């Protein structure tokens, strides 16, 4: 029997992917260092602005949706009852 392709299930690969993710994030910050940004609106010119923007906005979106989920989430048969 052909062995199943299970690359993403293996623990060592998962660890590698995490390292890859962190490395890419650092790399994008590194780009800021080599090519200082003028910024389109002025205030977005400082180092790592878009990193902070991406991080904070996504974290907020997840937290807000999590909080709203407490009120908004209902069982799947909610409308059939």
């Amino acid at each position, binding site marked *: 029997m052909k062995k199943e392709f299970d690359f993403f299930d293996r623990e060592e690969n998962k660890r590698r992917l995490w390292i890859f993710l962190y490395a890419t994030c650092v790399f994008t910050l590194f*780009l800021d260092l080599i090519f200082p*940004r003028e910024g389109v609106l002025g205030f977005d010119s400082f180092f790592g602005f878009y990193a902070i923007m991406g991080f904070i*906005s996504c974290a907020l*979106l997840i937290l807000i949706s999590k909080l709203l989920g407490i009120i*908004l989430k209902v069982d799947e048969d909610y409308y059939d009852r």
Partner: protein
Amino acid sequence: MIDSVLPGAILILGSLIVPLFKGRKKNVYMVILPAITFYLIWKLKPGTYLNFHFFGLDIIPLRVDRLSKVFGYIFSLNAFVAFIYSFWLDDDSQLLPALLYIGCSLGVVFSGDLLTLYIFWEGMAIFSTFLILARKTEKSQKAAMRYIMVHISGGLILLAGIVLFIFNTGSLVFEQMKSSDPATLLILIGFLLNAAAPPLSAWLPDAYPESTVTGGVILSAYTTKTAVYTLVRGFAGWHILVIVGCIMTIYGIIYALLENDMRRILAYSIINQVGFMVCGVGIGTEIAINGTVAHAFCHIIYKALLWMSAGSVLYMTGRSRCTDLGGLYKTMPLTLIFGGIGALSISAFPATSGFTSKSMIIEGAVHEHMIWTWIVLQVASAGVFLHAGIKFPYFVFFAKDSGLRPGETNRSMLLAMAIMSFICIFLGVYPDPLYNVLPYRVGYSAYHLEHVSSQLQLLMFSALVFFLFLPLLKRTETISIDTDWVYRRGAPLFYKIMDRGLNGLNDLCERIFILKMVGKISEFFAVAPQKIAYLLYAPFWKIRGKDVSYLRGDIFRAIDKGAMPIGLSAGSAIVFLIVIYLIL
């Protein structure tokens, strides 16, 4: 002749002979029709008008300009690929309405007056419903019913606006709306309902996920994007649309994050993406309008691609809930790759079509120094990667091993996805063919180092947040309450309250008035003359010293038989008149 054919007519008339074809020939025919349509649109010259007079009003079934042409291209192109996707399908109940629906949407885009637009608009609502009904499940029947009811209501609002518009201006020509009065506002509401702007948005995530595998691919493109077209045509630069658009982008993300069903995630992501476009319309400058149109163009392609990959998964596994799926990368790698390209495109990753189109809208906000709009759009851009870019592929193809080993989907579906993936990357790397057909000629390039690096930074840190917050994003077997609560739970509740309230009142009235009072009144009228006569005469009788009890029997008998002495009658009449006189 060829330069004044209605593009929609090819599909609408062409659909009539679909049932005559059997087997593969039918599917080949379905693919050829949009190809012919695309060619005809290509040949149409901007500035072509076809108009005639109708009760003193100008009816313009064909108006060709750069704006209508670019929407015509993408509508026919998407139809072409969608029918390749459904090449395996031999079901007239889906194929026929699909052609009619797409034909009507082309009719809307090429109509130059509001009446023609309205007719095709309603046609779209009706024929699209069949794509939901064709799923033939109880849930889809109910969803289709709600869908058509919402769209008929929206159509009526639009019609009311159009009637008022004729009354105000004496014209039917559909151009940029100048004043904001009840007529234009009603028309705007009608358009915004189809654009799925909250709170008029719940029909979309309610109905689309219940449609068939191919139905979802087709539906995702036309209704909302014809609405975007009408907004560009009629409401460019209306500032309220900036606010509506910003709300849509965030609303779409938050609900998509809450959702469990993969096609429902994609449905909410349509609202999010259309939000960018509505915002662009609101900004209204040449670059923002170009961005809106370019984004609509690219969005149709990558969104269809995402719906195709989700459709393939649904087709192969019969499941669409994230909690039931996972680990499909093992057996559906091609679907994963194509879906992944769609996911990267919607997230506006550099080298994909989203990057070259969406950034133009954001650039429009920069040009106008709309800082808050810019911030919201950036937050939403980051959020798109979160919900559609990573969440959808992650929970369907990775996350956990669901034990499902479906295997790759059929070849026609894979081919269609490959074509769409190619276009996504092609327009991402070389967007000039698209830029050349946009409504305005604006020199714009998305590729400069600063833009690429800032976009990469934004997206990679969004990805980081997704995986760091993964425990918070665990899927639950739930749905989320949206504004459809109003008519799904609110309306029955309202009915119950009205039922209890009004029927209770009815009951009470029956008991008091019908059962009790009628008896009393008829009794009163039956004995009133006797009683009045008795009451009037008794005092006189007493004065004369006669027996009153004898009088009572006497008067009652006399009135019953109609044998009152004339003097007595005349006397009582006079007394009665005096009483009336005194009262009055």
